[in-house]
């Protein structure tokens, strides 16, 4: 009687649902036999009692949820459905006249529009699936709009699409009266050249769709009809996507989707790109040339197939088998196999590139497809220009990478073949001054070639896209020869041309926008770079982007996120996105992957995953060494990055080793790598200081000198170098010198308005104050410093700040002291990805001191044993930080009643301190003075 009231009283605002749940929870704890009694006495309301009884009954019984969802779905999954007689009914404005095709995903009808005098004949495709979710409707409409915009003489037009009154989604397409392309070619007894011409037409049509980012996905002879007058028409463009899941289902169940035509990535569930259609075109070509679909791995050359099959089944039955074989062998075999490459990035970059190569074959020119295509092109080039090229080989090599990129981009951007060759011609003309047999010492410099090329470009007959590409190439080259201002101006110009001539949604415009942002970024002009790159990202989301643009965009965004330091995870996400994009578009292009890994390493470093970062840098280094050579700038840079990451991961010695190796490499690379040399020198100072500040004077003096030379002695960077001097003095025990350097550092860093740098000064300042016993001021500085540093790189500074804050706040009540200062610091340090790193030793020491102060000697022992073990092999035995930690460990042992251990440790520390003259070192006076009394 009263209990229901009790429930209600316990939670007066509880809803009926809440009460039901509470009663259920209580009831299931009641033994089965006592349940009805419980219900009687606890639930007054009859209806509710009945409901609860049913609930516990359902609780005991099997039911719907005991059968897995997939089994449920199977009960009404794909089954064989056939059409009823739909003939004569109307779909939209069209009456269905005859069924002309049927598949698992759709049935196709010939239909006519009535009225007027002219009967319009169309093909109506009825889809099997409904479009219930908003998502599907949205996708369907979006696709429909996209397909409707596809207007090409060789592509069957989409006339209408919608959902019928009977709620069947339908598509109305141009009706094509023709036969499949293979049948046509055989019936008309076309020779190889005529067949190639047909395929070239198909390629151009596919290319036109690709420019709208529409992928066919299902290119096969039955989808390519040829009308009586010989015109090619592609059917069903983009339709496969509309019905994708059913199409894939069909692959496995009904076989209507001929697996021989599917690209490897379709069968394997990989991502479908324009390269998928290039594969489809390859299959088509193969079949048209050999009469067979490609089979097996690796796919056999078409020429070898022709000889194997009886003549009657060969497509060109009346010709001589030997002649076809000869014609196919070599270049044409290579073209087909390149289109059919298993990895998408090894195929032709676009349908037009395939068409381009077929044209070249027809014209008797060398084709691009070749087992060693890059080398092949270069040797031909050299052969034609022998003389000039030989002496200018060095200049060629310097520019070849950029040239290759431009040509590659011209293809990937789905430009007309014409455009690609116009660019090629122009780029070749840049080298014209080199090819006249001019003596080597009178050869023009690269900067002169570039300047004259830029001038001449206005007069050259190039379309807007090509101009944009070239301007960007010039911008990049100017960056390479250290002309950043010229580079920026050229990039701006490229963007202006693209925006004006191609419009804001063009892939080239996006690429130019990315270039502008990147060049600003390379100049460390983040305020200019950020809005440009963010705008580019927005646009790329709206209009998509070419792989190479996206790679550069994500690279830039990763660097930017890293530089801003407010969200390190973002940097990693972007770096991963760039790496994924690289793998997707360039596959095992080592140079590009190397950059990807290097950037990923940066991101992981920002997150504090130094071990992961080191792995990434190691990969980048190996790739750089393999592509650019062991003594290249790239190799040196990655090595320097690797060294810094290893150091932070706690591998101080191998880190220093790599930094020193990078230093040696950079000294040989020379010239333009000055800023990298300086950064490397700064890292060497830091590494040496961590290993042993007593022997870091030379390394840190070099750091200070080089930073002054590079950035000027009033710069913020110089301020940071001065702060390192302050730290060095502090670690060597010279408090006065440390203060002096820090004041000089602060003056420069305060002028920069860089909060992170200011935060670092705050923390060092506070540490100095704490050594002088001023804990209250220190707390204020530390809280501010930690806030200023935020999540910036490297994270161990923030952790040290947090630990010092906890120390300063121990037993102090102040606005600057959070109540949980120690918990926060301990949590961050104990859960850091680099918890075991030697760079955390000072922070661990501070935490252990607090443990000791608060009577947790066991915790202090554990913490310091862990930290000193990690640091021992990495730091020199006489490094004051290590001695300090060992001193506190001895104290902790003493407090923990481990007297013998403590005494032994004190003796060792005292001896080392005495030998090295460190007895009065401020780190050690408090710990190593006299051994505290210890009693078991």
């Amino acid at each position: 009687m009263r209990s229901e009231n009790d429930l209600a009283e316990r939670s007066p605002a509880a809803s009926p649902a809440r009460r039901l749940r509470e009663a259920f929870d209580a009831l299931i704890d009641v033994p089965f036999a006592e349940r009805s009694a419980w219900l009687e006495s606890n639930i007054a309301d009859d209806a509710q009692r009945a409901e609860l009884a049913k609930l516990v009954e359902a609780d005991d019984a099997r039911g719907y949820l005991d059968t897995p969802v997939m089994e449920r779905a199977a009960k009404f999954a794909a089954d064989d459905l056939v059409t009823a007689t739909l003939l004569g009914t109307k779909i939209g404005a069209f009456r269905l006249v005859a069924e002309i095709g049927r598949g698992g995903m759709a049935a196709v009808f010939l239909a006519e529009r009535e009225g007027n005098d002219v009967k319009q004949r169309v093909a109506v495709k009825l889809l099997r699936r409904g479009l219930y979710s908003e998502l599907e409707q949205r996708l369907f409409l979006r696709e429909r709009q996209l397909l409707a915009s596809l207007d090409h003489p060789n592509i069957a037009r989409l006339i209408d699409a919608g959902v019928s009154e009977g709620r069947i989604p339908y598509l109305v397409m141009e009706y094509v009266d023709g036969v499949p392309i293979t049948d046509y070619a055989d019936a008309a007894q076309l020779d190889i050249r005529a067949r190639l011409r047909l395929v070239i037409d198909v390629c151009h049509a596919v290319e036109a769709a690709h420019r709208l980012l529409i992928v066919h996905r299902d290119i096969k002879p039955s989808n390519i009809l040829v009308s009586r007058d010989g015109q090619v028409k592609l059917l069903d463009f983009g339709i496969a996507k509309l019905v994708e899941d059913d199409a894939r289902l069909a692959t496995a169940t009904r076989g209507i989707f001929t697996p021989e035509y599917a690209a490897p990535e379709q069968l394997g569930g990989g991502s479908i790109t324009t390269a998928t259609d290039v594969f489809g075109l390859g299959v088509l070509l193969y079949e048209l040339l050999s009469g067979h679909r490609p089979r097996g791995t690796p796919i056999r050359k078409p020429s070898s197939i022709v000889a194997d099959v009886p003549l009657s089944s060969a497509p060109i039955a009346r010709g001589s088998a030997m002649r076809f074989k000869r014609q196919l062998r070599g270049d044409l075999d290579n073209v087909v196999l390149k289109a059919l490459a298993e990895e998408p990035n090894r195929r032709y970059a676009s349908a037009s590139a395939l068409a381009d190569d077929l044209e070249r074959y027809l014209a008797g020119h060398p084709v691009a497809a070749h087992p060693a295509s890059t080398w092949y092109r270069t040797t031909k080039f050299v052969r034609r220009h022998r003389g000039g090229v030989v002496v200018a080989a060095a200049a060629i090599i310097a520019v070849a990478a950029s040239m290759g990129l431009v040509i590659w981009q011209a293809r990937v951007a789905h430009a007309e073949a014409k455009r690609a060759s116009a660019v090629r011609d122009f780029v070749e003309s840049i080298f014209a001054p080199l090819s006249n047999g001019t003596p080597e010492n009178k050869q023009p410099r690269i900067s002169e070639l570039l300047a004259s090329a830029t001038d001449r470009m206005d007069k050259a007959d190039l379309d807007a896209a090509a101009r944009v590409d070239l301007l960007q190439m010039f911008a990049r080259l100017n960056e390479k020869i250290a002309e950043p201002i010229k580079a920026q101006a050229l990039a701006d110009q490229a963007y202006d041309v693209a925006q004006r001539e191609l419009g804001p949604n063009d892939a080239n415009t996006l690429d130019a926008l990315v270039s502008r942002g990147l060049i600003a970024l390379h100049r460390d002009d983040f305020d200019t770079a950020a809005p440009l790159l963010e705008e580019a990202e927005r646009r790329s989301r709206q209009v998509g982007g070419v792989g190479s643009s996206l790679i550069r965009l994500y690279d830039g965004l990763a660097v930017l996120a890293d530089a801003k330091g407010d969200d390190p995870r973002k940097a990693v996400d972007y770096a991963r996105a760039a790496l994924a994009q690289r793998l997707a578009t360039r596959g095992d292009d080592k140079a590009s992957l190397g950059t990807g890994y290097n950037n990923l390493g940066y991101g992981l470093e920002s997150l504090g995953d130094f071990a992961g970062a080191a792995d990434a840098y190691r990969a980048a280094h190996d790739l750089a060494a393999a592509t650019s050579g062991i003594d290249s700038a790239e190799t040196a840079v990655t090595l320097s990055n690797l060294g810094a990451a290893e150091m932070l991961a706690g591998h101080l010695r191998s880190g220093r080793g790599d930094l020193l190796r990078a230093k040696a490499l950079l000294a040989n690379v020379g010239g333009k790598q000055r800023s990298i040399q300086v950064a490397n020198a700064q890292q060497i100072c830091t590494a040496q200081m961590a290993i042993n500040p007593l022997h870091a004077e030379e390394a840190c003096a070099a750091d200070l000198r080089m930073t002054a030379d590079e950035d000027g002695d009033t710069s913020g960077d110089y301020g940071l170098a001065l702060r390192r001097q302050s730290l060095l003095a502090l670690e060597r025990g010279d408090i006065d010198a440390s203060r002096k350097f820090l004041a000089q550092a602060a003056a420069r860093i305060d002028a920069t308005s860089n909060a992170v740098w200011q935060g670092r000064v705050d923390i060092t300042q506070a540490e100095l104050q704490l050594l002088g016993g001023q804990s209250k001021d220190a707390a204020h500085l530390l809280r501010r410093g930690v806030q200023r540093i935020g999540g910036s790189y490297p994270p161990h500074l923030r952790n040290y700040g947090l630990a010092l804050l906890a120390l300063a706040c121990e037993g102090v009540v102040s606005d600057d002291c959070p109540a949980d200062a120690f918990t926060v610091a301990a949590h961050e340090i104990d859960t850091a990805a680099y918890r075991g790193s030697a760079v955390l030793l000072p922070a661990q020491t501070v935490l252990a001191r607090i443990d000791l102060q608060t009577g947790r000697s066991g915790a202090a022992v554990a913490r310091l044993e862990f930290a000193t073990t990690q640091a021992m092999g990495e730091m020199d035995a006489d490094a004051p930080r290590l001695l300090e930690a060992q001193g506190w460990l001895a104290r902790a042992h003493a407090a923990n009643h481990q007297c013998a251990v403590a005494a032994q440790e004190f003796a060792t520390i005292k001896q080392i301190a005495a030998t090295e003259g460190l007895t009065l070192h401020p780190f050690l006076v408090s710990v190593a003075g006299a051994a505290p009394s210890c009693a078991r």
Partner: protein
Amino acid sequence: MAATTDSTGTVAGSADALFDAVYERLKVMAGRQLAKRERGTLDTTAVVHELYLRCKTQRELNFSHPAQFYAYAARAMRHLLSDHARDRLRQCAGGDWQRLTLTGAEQHLVIESAEQALALDDTLRLLEQEDERAARVVELRYFAGLSLEQVAETLGLNRSTIDRDWRFARAYLHKALG
């Protein structure tokens, strides 16, 4: 960073694109499993985990946390079941397509199964209003195929809390579905 989840794993509004992508991929993978069903058993967990691994290794989709992924995958699987059910009902009954190959009894089973699936969705929606967390547990447990232990981890709650949520939700749904 297309999407975020709040502390309870609720899918936030800005996440359309990411959800769409998960839905599309799940649909393909579930379809493939269903197509092969004669040869092997159907395994919800395997489908969802395969999708998770693919998202992780291909890095096409960026989830800030596995919990976010599973919330999306569960929701997607739920949509998928209902969408399939609606398709089948339309094809079997009112639409212009007819099934000729199935016997009456088979057809009855198909219709009943589809109707049950829709009823589950409706009831789950009621449960959402009464006990949202319990409904979420059903999504993760039933639709994403997570173990209760994993559900607890994903939602950041005690195992015992999750056990009770599941028990209540299961009883609630079974009672309603008969």
